[in-house]
Structures are given as C-alpha cells and as structure tokens.
C-alpha cells in the first residue's frame, strides 16, 4: 500500500478552506462595524471639545481610551486569525490522518 500525495493534497486543501471561509463571514462585519464606531466617536469627541462640553485635557485621555479599544480590536482579530489558521491546518491533518496512518503502519497523525 502506498500514499498518493497528489490525491491527498486536494482533500487537505478542501478541509483547510472551510474555517477560512467561515472566519471571513464572522470577523469581516464585526471589524467593519467596530472600526466605523471608533471613527464616529473620534469625530464626535472633536465636536464636543469645540462646544466646550469636554475639557481638552479630558479629550486626550478619552482619545487614549479610543486607542486602547483599537488595540484590543486588533488583538482580537489577530487571535481569531490564529485560531482560524490553527483550525485550517488541523482540519487538513485530520482529513488524511486515517489514510496516512494506515499507509505508514503507525499513528503518525
């Protein structure tokens, strides 16, 4: 019994694509909404300082809080991207585990 690598590769690619497609559907709209919210808040902050509703010193702190929200968002996207990549690789390995293990005669995957 031998492994046909040319046949296994398409199955791995197919398995890996599933979480990647799902991640785009999940993360894309979330990122767009969050970034739009942050842009709107920065704009309103400038208007409130101009109207005297917020002190300039407080505006600096509020802007820093906005920055921290952006940092947290980017960290979430990066982390979700890693989970997605991890799932894609593991799906690919799982998809061919039985066939590879049988071919090599021991539990490799």
């Amino acid at each position, binding site marked *: *019994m031998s492994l*046909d690598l040319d046949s296994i590769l398409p199955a791995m690619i197919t398995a890996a694509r599933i979480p990647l497609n799902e991640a785009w559907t999940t993360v894309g709209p*979330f990122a767009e909404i969050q970034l739009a919210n942050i842009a709107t808040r920065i704009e309103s902050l400038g208007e409130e300082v101009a109207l005297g*509703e917020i002190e300039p010193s407080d505006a600096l702190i*509020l802007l820093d809080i906005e920055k921290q929200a952006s940092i*947290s968002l980017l960290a*979430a996207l990066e982390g979700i991207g890693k*989970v997605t990549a991890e799932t894609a690789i593991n799906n690919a390995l799982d*998809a061919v585990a039985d*066939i590879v293990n049988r071919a090599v005669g021991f539990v490799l995957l």
Partner: protein
Amino acid sequence: MLPPALAPLRAFRVGMLLALMLFALSGLSGCHVRLIMAYDPVLDQSFTALQQDTEQLFGQLEANPGSPATSFENHKDFYIKAHATLRTMRTRARFEPQSAEVLTQIDALDRSLAGLQQLHINASPNGPSAAVIHAAEGPIESQFASIFQLQLALKNRMKTPVSANATAPALTN
C-alpha cells in the same frame, strides 16, 4: 530549477524541510497545531465579572452625572478592585504559552480603566459630566466586545466540522 548536477543538494534541502516539519509536529500534542493559548474559563469568567462591575459603575454615574454623589471618592473601590483583578488575570495569562493577544487585551483594558479613573479624579469634587461618561463608555464597551469575540473563538476552536467532501481518496496500490 536546479541543474541535474545539483540534484543531491535539492534532495538534501527537501530532506531538511521534511525533518523540520516532523520536528515541529513531534512537539505538538496529538499532532495538532496550536498557535494561540488554550481557552481558560477562569479568565473568561473574570472578564465577565469585570464587565458587570464596569457596567454597574457607568449606570451609577449616568444616574447622577456631575454630582457629588458620583464623585471619585464614592467610587474609589471600583478602581482598586478592577486594577487588582486585571493584575491577577495578567499573572495567570502570562504563564500560558502563546497568550500575547490576551495579554494585550488585558493591558489595554487596564489602561482604559486607568484613564477612566483619571477622568473621574479630574471631575472632583463632583462626578464626571454626562458628555465625558458617554465618550468613555462606548470605547470601553467596544473593548469588552473585542475581548469576548476572542474568548468565544478560543472556546469554539476545533468545533468546525470537516466537510464530507474533504475525505481523502482511496489509497492506490
């Protein structure tokens, strides 16, 4: 493409690549790749509890904005407890491998709450105005949303099913 004379070099390079891949796989539990920390329910629950406390604070500030009742002195305990909670969470996450993203979120939240504390102090002897509360509340709530998005992804990892179409073809003899 290398010339035929360099075929042994090519074989060596392919062999090295395979050896590196096997070495990488050998260190992984069950031959599964792990790129980010495992889901930690204690951290998730701590984030949830902290969000509840923070929402409660905003609710109290919004009830009487700019009044002595919502002064920093009357809410100092929230900041002491929140900072201690985040430091404890940071210590826990720091000892988890591949926890950089979660640590970044903890640090960002700690800095935001420190900013909120400074806004609260600046408004003394009264509490912060409605405009300041509103401007701080939105991004802090966004931070919690980002945190829970990542926590949910960690919690749900490996639940993505492998499609029936992904089944490998039969072995050739």
